[in-house]
């Protein structure tokens, strides 16, 4: 039993490792996927052709007349697709153990609603977001606020959808045309969802007021206990109830810095 521990484990090693790897995967996914989604991003495709172009253009034995713009783009897209698929493979391999472990502990997920459900609770949660992020006040929340929970659920669904549709697209010939075309739509829809949400996620993650959480994810996974007590009161109470941590009287919440 920890008496007055200095930090509380916010993210386990598996969670941190997964998140940080997925971060990298996402970068590759997005960069290699964008030029296939829209020709507005063709310049990325051409970028991927640089090594090939260098070799092809410089050495006549590989390409007699040098590459046209199109061939360059084409080559770059081929490279991008290969990277996309390799990343997919790595992502799936990495995801399986993560998902398995998470599912084992599904009852203790922090992204379930707290004590109350329903529209009223939701509205309260959203109001709490306003208080927190706009008025910079303190709110009684668990480990995650409602925004973060909604984000998490959305990401779970979207990532599942993008993975399954991606699987179909990688092994197209095993599926009917209708399934293939629907998968393209789902893949795009889930990407758009993920993409837009990621922008929000990145912004919020980098906000100074959320710095401790950032450190928790990228360093040792721990949050200062005081911080938890003041910023995530519900969570703290749950933890102390469970683990018997001696609660210090809640101090006046400090304004975030």
């Amino acid at each position, binding site marked *: 039993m920890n008496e007055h521990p200095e930090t509380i484990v916010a993210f386990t090693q598996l969670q941190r490792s997964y998140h940080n790897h997925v971060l990298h995967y996402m970068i590759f996914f997005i960069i290699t996927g964008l030029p296939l989604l829209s020709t507005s991003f063709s310049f990325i495709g051409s970028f991927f052709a640089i090594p090939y172009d260098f070799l092809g253009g410089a050495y006549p034995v590989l390409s007699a007349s040098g590459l046209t713009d199109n061939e360059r783009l084409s080559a770059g897209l081929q490279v991008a697709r290969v990277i996309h698929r390799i990343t997919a493979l790595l992502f799936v391999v990495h995801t399986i153990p993560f998902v398995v472990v998470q599912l084992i502990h599904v009852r203790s997920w922090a992204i379930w609603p707290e004590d109350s459900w329903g529209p009223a609770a939701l509205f309260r949660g959203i109001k709490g977001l306003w208080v927190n992020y706009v008025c910079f006040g303190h709110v009684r929340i668990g480990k995650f606020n409602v925004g973060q929970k909604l984000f998490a659920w959305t990401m779970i669904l979207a990532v599942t959808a993008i993975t399954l549709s991606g699987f179909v697209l990688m092994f197209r010939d095993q599926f009917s045309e209708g399934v293939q075309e629907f998968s393209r739509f789902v893949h795009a829809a889930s990407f758009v969802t993920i993409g837009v949400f990621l*922008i929000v996620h990145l912004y919020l993650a980098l906000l100074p007021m959320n710095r401790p959480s950032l450190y928790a994810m990228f360093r040792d996974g721990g949050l200062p206990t005081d911080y938890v007590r003041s910023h995530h009161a519900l969570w703290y109470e749950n933890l102390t109830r469970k683990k018997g941590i001696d609660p210090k009287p809640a101090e006046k919440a400090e304004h975030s810095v």
Partner: protein
Amino acid sequence: MRYLNMYDSISCLNCLACMSACSMENRMRLERDAGVSIERGVNEYLPGSYYLRPWRREVGKYPDSRFLVAFEHCRHCENAQCLIHCPAGAIERRPMGQVVINPSACIGCRTCRDVCPFDIPIYDNQTGKARKCIGCYDRVESGMQPACVTACPSRALISGPEDIVLAEGEDRIAIYSKRLGRDYIIYGKDKINRVVGRLGWVSIAAREDAEYYDLFARPAKATMIARDGLKMGGAVGAACVVAGAALHGLYLFAKRKDQVKAAEHDTKENADE
């Protein structure tokens, strides 16, 4: 002046000479362009060489039944969705209107197939690229007609400058309407919908038979149009979110300044005491 192909389902004999000629012409092209000798090229199935394909369709119940053969071919649309969506920009429109996939630029992503309202481009497993009718642009630009047109023994396939072809089409449907008592259309002569526009390969059929010949009233791939909407929506959404984040960030910054000032003031006050 656009160069049009026209298919007349009324005078078609379902002899499939057009399809045989097409495949054979592509095997000749293999020798000419890819160095695969004709002797080898005619000794393989080469499913990718069939740009024209038949679909058996039975309509109705015996004895009021009919058997027709739908003619699967590229329409060389005015708003070719394949051309618009190809991520590799590998599809071009030739000066006379044929929509052509450049095989050296194709990356085999099958977007053209996914997006084509008529399901025309086929993915050739042997080459890893998509292929479809090229309108025999190489023949046409050399002053000849497409291989399928020259192959048709009943002149159910004709081609040429737009005005001549459509005039012949109008003549034919006038005769058919008069003698056969049904309403005939030249599908693709006028804009069909916003998705495809007019067609570079038009078809004559009885209006009531149009759907059996895949002459769709509203050709479109719903999922891919929705995907286009998503792309637009995503761009808009991303912009909004970035703007929102920027605003919040500025607001935060401004607020922070006030806080710092206030804190300094307090500290100063405390220090002064």
